[in-house]
């Protein structure tokens, strides 16, 4: 009898859950608009007494954020490109067979992630220095960060390939296609959505790359936004409003893109793409 109401009831719960989940994001925006002493106020105010939006343009100008954000975009694009080019083929092969060697390959890909980036940076720095890559710092960061992003991508995309019916590829081979031909004309198009979505996810997570960039890129005009953010944290001062405003400027564009794309991302992954 109550059946027609169930979906609306579920919607209400969903909205409540989303409100709880998104609260930290709300708090970031609110804090950025508070005055210096209001953020220390106890009890905290849920809406700024005197919202001050002028901090946004001033932080933008003071920190030359357009350069930082552009660098973040460059680095994230580079990481995504390498990850997709190298990871897709690898994932395809690892999904195609079932043997001890494949197990070993999967095992290796995960094991190579044993070290946190913070510990890998010293050897990478030394190595890059030796081959002169430190003169191309953004390229160096792209290479290092791609190696970190790869396992996640391979695992996800491998699952995509698993759901591409084997018979289709075999039929193509019987029809006289070469392996290369079958891969590019049959398997890849079928897995396209999954790969695309994983690529977007890789892009988004490498947009926040921090540890490699801060050590490898010395020239301020080539550093990404994450490194710019850490510049606020001085020895005897941390300018919290500006940090929050900077964070807001940093994540808002990517959040906006994300909200626009999210239906595609989620449906791309859940309905059919990975099946």
């Amino acid at each position, binding site marked *: 009898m109550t059946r027609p109401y169930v979906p609306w009831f579920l919607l209400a719960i969903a909205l409540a859950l*989303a409100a709880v989940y998104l609260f930290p994001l709300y708090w970031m925006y609110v804090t950025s608009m508070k005055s210096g002493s209001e953020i220390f106020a106890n009890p905290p105010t849920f809406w700024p007494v005197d919202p001050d939006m002028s901090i946004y343009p001033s932080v933008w100008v003071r920190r030359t954020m357009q350069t930082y954000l552009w660098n973040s975009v460059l680095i994230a694009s580079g990481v995504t490109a390498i990850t997709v080019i190298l990871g897709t083929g*690898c994932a395809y092969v690892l999904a195609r067979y079932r043997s001890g060697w494949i197990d070993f390959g999967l095992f290796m890909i995960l094991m190579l992630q044993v*070290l*946190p980036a913070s510990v890998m940076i010293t050897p990478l720095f030394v190595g890059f220095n030796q081959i002169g890559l430190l003169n191309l710092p953004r390229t160096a960061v792209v290479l290092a960060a791609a190696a970190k992003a790869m396992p996640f991508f391979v695992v996800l995309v491998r699952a995509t390939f698993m759901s591409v019916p084997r018979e289709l590829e075999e039929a193509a081979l019987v029809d006289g296609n070469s392996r290369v031909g079958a891969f590019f004309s049959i398997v890849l198009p079928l897995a396209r959505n999954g790969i695309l979505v994983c690529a977007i996810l890789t892009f988004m997570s490498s947009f926040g790359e921090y540890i490699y960039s801060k050590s490898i890129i010395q020239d301020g005009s080539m550093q990404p936004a994450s490194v710019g953010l850490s510049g606020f944290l001085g020895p005897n001062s941390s300018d919290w409003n500006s940090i929050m405003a900077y964070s807001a400027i940093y994540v808002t564009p990517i959040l906006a893109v994300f909200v626009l794309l999210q239906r595609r991302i989620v449906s791309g992954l859940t309905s059919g793409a990975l099946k």
Partner: protein
Amino acid sequence: MARIFNSMRDGIGFDLILVGAAMVFLLALAGLPLVYNILMSFQQVDMFTLGELFRPLAGFTNYVAVVNAPEFWLVTRNTLIFVFASMAGQFVLGFSLALFFAQKFPGAATIRGLFLVSWVMPGLVVGAIWSWILAGDFGVLNTILKAMGIIEAPIFWKSDPNFSIWAVVIANIWLGLAFNMLLLSVGLAAIPRDLYEAAELDGANAFQRFWTITLPMMRSTIGAVLSLGLIGTLQQFDLFPALTEGGPANTSNVAGYWAWQMSFKLYDFAKGATISVMMFVLVLIASVVYVRSTRHEVRG
């Protein structure tokens, strides 16, 4: 020659190239640093030899020193709490949300999309935000809990030794929720609907259907989520400097942060490498779990 070329185009060679390119790349950029760190954990390192590969050997002295450090067992305990509590929280909440959003109701897909926000948030920013939310005196979480009558006195999330590790766990669960929910949603969507319909005809209730269909069908997804989650959690770094810096008195220090502290705060590179090599054990478990879980995969 032609045979080799042919195999590259139309045989096992093609597979080898695809997998080989990625492997060579990973070995160079992740394998070599790993070897460097393992070597370093058996050596004496100082600022003059930081850039070299061969240094005076130290045998197991670094390992002995790390194990004998007063904070060693505390850090081990914290690492286990952090890893398992974070993963349990992320997984249970992520799975619940995935199941919830698999229901049909208006706006389900759109609202589910919002839950991916923490995926795009850089760890540095998340740490800064949570550090304000969790502050003892002027933190908003305490204000909310007090208003709801759950607590009477403020909880000093970051400064109370009983809560400090949980402060980081809470922030980390939030951060990892998107990842878990996304992957588990994908796994759920891949289960053929007719299986459920058949079970329903057989009179299975919701719990039985979950237990006999959902879980077994999700094995490989769960394996992937858990192993990637374990690795991600072990590598979590950004939250620590923003929230507790491992304090108070190391009660929220975990292996990953400790390794960083040794190398880059105390400038003892050898011990930092030693700790990171010891974390190897946990990643080993993750890898085995993952590889085993792939055995249950169903090829489409």
